[in-house]
């Protein structure tokens, strides 16, 4: 159209993969405009009335015990890998000497693998 050539520098181009970040950002803006245009066709906000903003809890008042505690955030993952975590948890003694001995053992194993394989 204009007979112009240009080189987009703001990106990654390696033997393995490519990513033109500038173009990505530009198209993200276009995608945002499309998404926003669709969204703007909907009704904004809601009429104020009793109980409208209360969180859904099957018709009950939310008890304080209903929340996911931070210790349970990964429940499911930890439960699934219980057979792995149970023995590993025992090794976490809190004693720095134990951790350093594990590091020495692991590094020795890696060096042996690198030397002999």
């Amino acid at each position, binding site marked *: 159209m204009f007979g112009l*050539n*240009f080189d987009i520098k703001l990106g990654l181009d390696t033997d393995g993969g490519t990513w033109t970040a500038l173009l990505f950002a530009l198209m993200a803006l276009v995608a945002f405009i*499309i*998404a926003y245009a669709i*969204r703007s066709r909907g009704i904004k906000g809601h009429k104020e009335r009793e109980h*409208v903003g209360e*969180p859904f*809890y099957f018709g009950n008042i939310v008890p304080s015990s209903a929340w996911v505690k931070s210790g349970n955030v*990964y429940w499911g993952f930890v439960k*699934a890998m219980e057979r792995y975590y149970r023995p590993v948890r025992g090794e976490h003694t809190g004693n720095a000497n134990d951790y350093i001995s594990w590091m020495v053992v692991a590094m020795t194993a890696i060096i042996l693998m690198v030397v002999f394989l």
Partner: protein
Amino acid sequence: MMDINDLYVRMLLGVLAMLAAVVVGLAYKGIDRKIAAHMQSRIGPPLRQPFRDISKLMQKETITPDGAVDWIFHGMPVIGLVAALLLVLYIPWGPLSPPLKAHGDLILVLYLLIIPSLAMALGGFSSGSPVAAIGAQREMVMMMSYEFPLAIVILSLAWFYTRVLPGSAPFAFTTMEAAPIWGLVGPIGFIGAVLLLLSLVVVTPSELSKIPFDAPEAETELGGGLMAEYSGRDLAMFYIADAVKGLVMAAIIVGLFFPHPLSPIVEKYYALPLIMDQPVVAWIIDGLFFLFKVFLVLFATVTTVRVAFPRLKIDKISYIYLVPVSLMALAGTLLLYLDTLGGV
């Protein structure tokens, strides 16, 4: 160096592809619901029901729960849809190569796939509802579990292409399109490729939060889970993002494993040179064939699976992906490796 005219055309194609993906994604959702209903001996909603759902949601109030983090709660649905739309730009659509094919590859697709799920989880956490927080917690656990086998599949395929076709771009869909994996493998490698395909097939319903991997939403247990507090246009955004992501996931499977066009076969066996000389005819045939392949993939990975299986508990889901599916994907990788050694 890049021709600016070509870039303009590609960007325009990208915009059209994004708009088309919304319509086609919703249409596939309608087909999925209709077929699932028939499988359960129900009549089911009409095919245009997803469009009606969107239209209805747009007319509903958008309620912000008390205690919600306002900007995250309303921002995440838009971000989820933006990420789903961006995915469309980097995936081949049958006879159409990816709109931005030279500007991003499978690694980018892998990252973008995470964003809609992450947006849903963040939206759930920010909603100020314990039910949504449980759903969001489950979504995060599920993501941590299925991303591992998904990454193994993508990396194994890329590694295989670097071994078999040195010098090719291993993460580009165009490489797979030019030389589909089934033509490059021996008998051992064939089994490996089938195992990788199966792994991806198992990951798909989880990526889309469909039964039996819909623990984050779990309508009968959590009343919608991380979607429980969403309403109106925000819920519509997630609904559209889900439709687009479903289409994208099926297109990824087709692009990686079944990129074959139909027009050469039609030309060869039905000898229609007069018609086939017209590129537009071949384009239409390949386009329709691509849509059919996407339908088959969605039918096999979503519709049939969600009708046939009950919902699994979150720890079971996590275990399935972290152990059996990951091992299956690793076995596929090993078999592909053995295949590249030759003479096996």
